[in-house]
């Protein structure tokens, strides 16, 4: 196999490549945050006139809450009542599975093609 000689990349090209990579990375991480789509689905449940009993706290728990600086039930109510919503649709789950499996399938397929070139050049056909 003929040896592949990679072109030398100029300084401007190198800078552009880094900027493209950074935009993609920061975008992937920040766009869900900016759009308000990211984050846990943990929401506090409002409780009117909460008491330690109505919040399901026994005396030992109350004692620890007080040591932590929560002197009354109202101040701790938001923390205590917040719960994750784990409901999900089967469609969303299937989409997630397809995306993950598809991603690894792309990786393995393209990698194999590139790897065969590497081995052929290194060890000969």
């Amino acid at each position, binding site marked *: 196999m003929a040896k592949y000689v*990679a072109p*030398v*990349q100029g*300084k401007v090209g*190198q*800078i552009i*490549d*880094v900027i*493209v*990579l*950074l935009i*993609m*990375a920061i*975008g*992937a*991480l920040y766009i*869900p*945050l900016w759009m308000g*789509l*990211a*984050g*846990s689905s*943990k929401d506090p449940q409002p409780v009117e006139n909460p008491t330690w009993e109505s919040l*399901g*706290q*026994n*005396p*030992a*728990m109350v004692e*620890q809450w007080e*040591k*932590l600086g929560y002197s009354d039930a109202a101040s*701790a109510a938001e*923390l205590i009542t*917040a719960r*994750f*919503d*784990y409901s*999900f649709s089967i469609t969303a*789950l299937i*989409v*997630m599975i397809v*995306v*993950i499996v598809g*991603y690894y399938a*792309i*990786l*393995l397929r*393209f*990698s194999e*093609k*590139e*790897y*065969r070139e*590497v*081995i*052929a*050049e*290194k*060890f000969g056909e």
Partner: protein
Amino acid sequence: MAQAQTTEHVGLARVLGPAHIWALGVGIVLVGEYMGWNFSVGKGGAYAALMACWFAGILYTCVAMIDSEVTSTVAAAGGQYTQAKHIVGPLMAFNVGLYLVFAYTMLEAANAITFGFLIDTVATMSGHEAGSLDQRPFIILAIMFLAWLNYRGVLATLTFNLVITAIAFTAVIVLFLSTSGIFTDSPLRHTELMSGPAAMPYGWLGVLAAMHFGLWYYLGIEGTTQAAEEVRSPARSLPFGTLAGVMTLAIAATLTWYVCSGLMPWEYLGQAGVPLFDAARLSGSTFLMVFLGIGTMFATLASANGCINDASRAWFAMGRDRYLPGWFGAVHPRYRTPYRAIIFLVPIALIFALGAPIDQVITFSILSGLLEYTFMPLNIILFRRKWPLESINRGYEHPFHPLPAYVLLGLCGMTFFAVFLGYGTQLVAMIAFYIVVSLWFHFWRYRFVNRGAQFTMPWPKPRGY
């Protein structure tokens, strides 16, 4: 470029021993016991967090076994990136390199956020008005100082890590011994705090969901392989340092869970910023409070320090191979560190440390780690297939192959589902990023990479090619 061409041929210095490897691995991860693991309590309750801790322990044991075998043979900077390059192929290697960089850079950002939060907490306890302290200067200073330390040399960096990691680990042990009832009456109240609905607030689904942050107990231990090119005896030091690190962390994680879940209601523990420090406060001992405050500070610094070390090695290795612009592949002529990679990653860490909530930053780090762990079973299966045991010498051969690979794959699948429960948007966004960036690499960037020159190991031709 002329300078880069001349400096990149200077090798990294081989100065590290097994203790440094242990310190690098445990130093990065020990902060996971000081913060972040407790979000698994929030996702499933205290019992769920303990089960997640042990399942994650099995996951990381598989990771350490697989990693030790491959790394004891592939002793070069870049760790899993270099493994992927030689075993699976360039595109996989590029992705693995990015997993490493993002997992460690996000972890570094999370450490800096926690460092700022701790300073704020101490200021409030000292009489400062709650929430009025500007944490940003402390975050920036911490990252800049550690980057400078990394710039100056790996031996000083990891010796610093060895000392502060040992102190932070000792703090966890002292807290456990002081509160367990061995020497004095125990303040722990597991029975009362974990009774009734507090036992399993989300049922068994919560156990599954808790695996998401369960990874945080150990995330980063695989970073030991990044130092492969700077270790005096890689075949001995890397398996020893990595496996000793996993054992250390399994003990520290269980002790941490035991103390914290016996002192705090799960609703508080599940969202606490500095849970071990809170536990020390609740113990009623000023000495413990000060010691765990110092321990938290040291753990965050040790972790951020190791993260800068590892992320920069991965970025450097990709630059050296032209997967990224070759400018990053330079070694400092005097300090022999990948200084350009170290400097370049500083502002990226700052962007996230100053602008994103900590649970998001941790999730980004965990997701990158999870994608990397999913690669490992594929890696070891292909490694054994292409180079069977008798074909090349291995410094370490992991037992029961392919069982650890299948167990690891199964646990990764379980953790993907756990992340999906509550953080599905980030999961899809991050994988969409990796798909786009993979296409960019395959169709554009790869043209700048020489083909055969990427394969640098003195191995025979792989079987089947």
